[in-house]
């Protein structure tokens, strides 16, 4: 993988010029996201970009590069590591930060659990997903971040469809859907008091397919787990989970070997694989285009617990 500032647009100048003559939805979405990134840099003292190694945050990094080129990205990349992440995503994260010369801040859920004596979920469906919030809020406090840029999209989930691009959070990190600030035109109001912060979602208006189309257009390398590969998995209730010691197994679980790819890259305990032979970006895009199941519906076990699972997590300070 090589990502240098010079190649930042991923396309030739001639190609770029041609493209500009006919407005394209990807150009429009890109211009909007770059505008939002620059509003963050212009309005806040200590912003951060929340980076997970997933495709959405990889897209954010590319947008930030373009927004501030030829300068460096003027804020650190921050990762809240549950300790249950895919090694491929972690390696990708480290390489990317190094190639960009960007500051990378990693904080571990494991440390928060020890320091605060938090009780982890137990049992076979235990996940650290909820505990991430504690580490995230501590990290925000530690560095006094006033804005955290995240890769959430409104098409992902119905509570997210209601969230602002500049999403105000109180000093406890809580989202109050009934007290959101009106967001008019593209006039984003990032004024806050000390201790409060804003979560900013530059790709709010992108769909899953838009992200894939952009990754392809920009020729951005992705962690290998996004493409078909053979892997040992736990087959549980119709979902294929990575066979890792961090997932507790019982006699109903079957260990199988399948050719799969991951459609989202979250915590291993709640991210399921899909069976697929799609080994290239084009093949992945072709599969998603005809897929009849939404991204989170197919792969995120954490959203399926109740109809308002995401809304409740966000009210509690979740990203």
């Amino acid at each position, binding site marked *: 993988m090589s990502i240098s500032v010079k190649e930042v647009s991923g396309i030739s100048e001639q190609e770029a010029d041609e493209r500009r003559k006919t407005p394209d939805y990807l150009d429009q979405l890109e211009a909007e996201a770059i505008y939002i990134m620059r509003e963050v840099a212009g309005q806040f003292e200590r912003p951060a970009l929340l980076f997970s190694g997933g495709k959405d945050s990889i897209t954010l990094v590319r947008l930030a590069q373009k927004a501030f080129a030829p300068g460096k990205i003027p804020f650190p990349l921050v990762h809240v590591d549950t300790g249950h992440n895919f090694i491929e995503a972690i390696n990708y994260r480290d390489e990317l930060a190094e190639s960009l010369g960007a500051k990378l801040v990693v904080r571990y859920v494991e440390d928060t659990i020890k320091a605060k004596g938090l009780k982890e979920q137990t049992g076979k469906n235990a996940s650290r997903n909820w505990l991430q919030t504690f580490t995230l809020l501590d990290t925000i406090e530690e560095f006094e971040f006033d804005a955290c840029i995240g890769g959430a999209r409104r098409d992902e989930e119905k509570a997210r469809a209601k969230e602002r691009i500049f999403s105000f959070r109180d000093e406890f990190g809580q989202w109050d859907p*009934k007290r959101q600030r009106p967001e008019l035109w593209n006039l984003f109001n990032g004024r806050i008091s000390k201790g409060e912060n804003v979560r900013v979602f530059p790709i709010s208006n992108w769909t899953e397919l838009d992200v894939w189309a952009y990754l392809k257009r920009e020729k951005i390398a992705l962690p290998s787990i996004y493409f078909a590969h053979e892997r040992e998995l736990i087959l549980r209730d119709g979902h294929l989970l990575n066979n890792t010691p961090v997932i507790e197994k019982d006699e109903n679980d079957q260990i199988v070997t399948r050719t799969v790819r991951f459609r989202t890259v979250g915590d291993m305990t709640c991210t399921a694989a899909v069976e697929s032979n799609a080994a290239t970006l084009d093949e992945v895009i072709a599969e998603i285009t005809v897929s009849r199941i939404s991204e989170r519906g197919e792969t995120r076990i954490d959203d399926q617990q109740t109809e308002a699972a995401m809304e409740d997590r966000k009210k509690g300070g979740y990203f």
Partner: protein
Amino acid sequence: MDLLRFITAGSVDDGKSTLIGRLLYDTKNILADQMEAIERASKSRNVGEIDLALLTDGLRSEREQGITIDVAYKYFQTPSRKFISIDAPGHIQYTRNMVTGASNADLAIILVDARHGVVEQTRRHSLIASMLGIPHVIVAINKMDLIGNSEDGYLQIAQAYKELAEKLNIKDLTIIPVSALNGDNIVDRSENMPWYTGETLLTMLETVNVLKDQNQDDARFAVQYVIRPQTEELHDYRGYAGRIQSGTFKKGDAVKVLPSEQESKIAKIEFGGNEIDSASVLESVTILLEDDIDISRGDSIVSLNNSPVISQDLEAIVCWMDDKKTLKAGNKYVLQHGTSRSRCSVRDIEYQIDINSYEKLDEVESLKLNDVARIVLRTAQPIAYDPYQKNRANGAAILIDETSNVTVGACMIE
């Protein structure tokens, strides 16, 4: 393939969410698991048929009450266009939410119940669409099946609407008879209304020209951020990052920096670190000038021969959005216009506009939530603006409460 943002206005009773559901369903943009979730929820609520409205109501309290409270965004596409549908609640107590949704829309669909015709809320929604300068308005006369798909019924309502529209500023108006529930004239032409020879709703959405709506004439660029890498190689680099608000900028163009009014020429335009020859409306680029001028966030770069108004005295139509405090003459706020912020004080409330009757109400002491009025503002620093109806991007501003930091007003500068 380009992007169209449209808002749907109407209450739940008008079948607004059902209409969006229908558009998504008939264009095959609802996925299997989403459909199953809706079926499950419809069953548990005993609504009989599948309730397509459940697709857009995302918050627990909305599902509980069966109403849309906040603006919801839905995304779908057809082979010719990508769509962002902005679903805003229709009730008068949510006027601010509709204004919010309308501020970014290229097109408005206003729903009218065929049984009731043009009613108070039709007037309200139309005023908001007109006030916010939405260039295209489609009036969808819904529930045609409940008036026997009658052409006479349609013509009467269309006539009543046209009379109303004459009092407003609606550039492009289309009136379509539909049934969201049955899918008539939404995506597919209705066999129940052979007398209707116009386009279906989807065809209108797919073909309306939105590029022409952008202001292509007045070159305006608000500086968001100054890029100064300060590396050895790029020691003297000073790039002004921003988005073209209107018009086009080219290399070599003579420009003026506002509010300082210093003149210079464009030395270079860059995108993503690469040089480009020109940049037009809505593009996010970086501009470099030939002269070393002191420029920071909040300043604008405009064409030398075509200047916006520069003034500390503004008149604006305001929609008041604070549910706790009222707007009164003498009150002070922060005015955010483009990337600039300035303190301002309200000199006067000239008149309030009754958003249902369009009457002007004089001698109004204060504005409360959802009130619309024309006000006079005095700003601490000069503002470089264009009238909103001529240039949406450079005529819009928000009022921010200095103590709570909440956005309390939407201003359209006149």
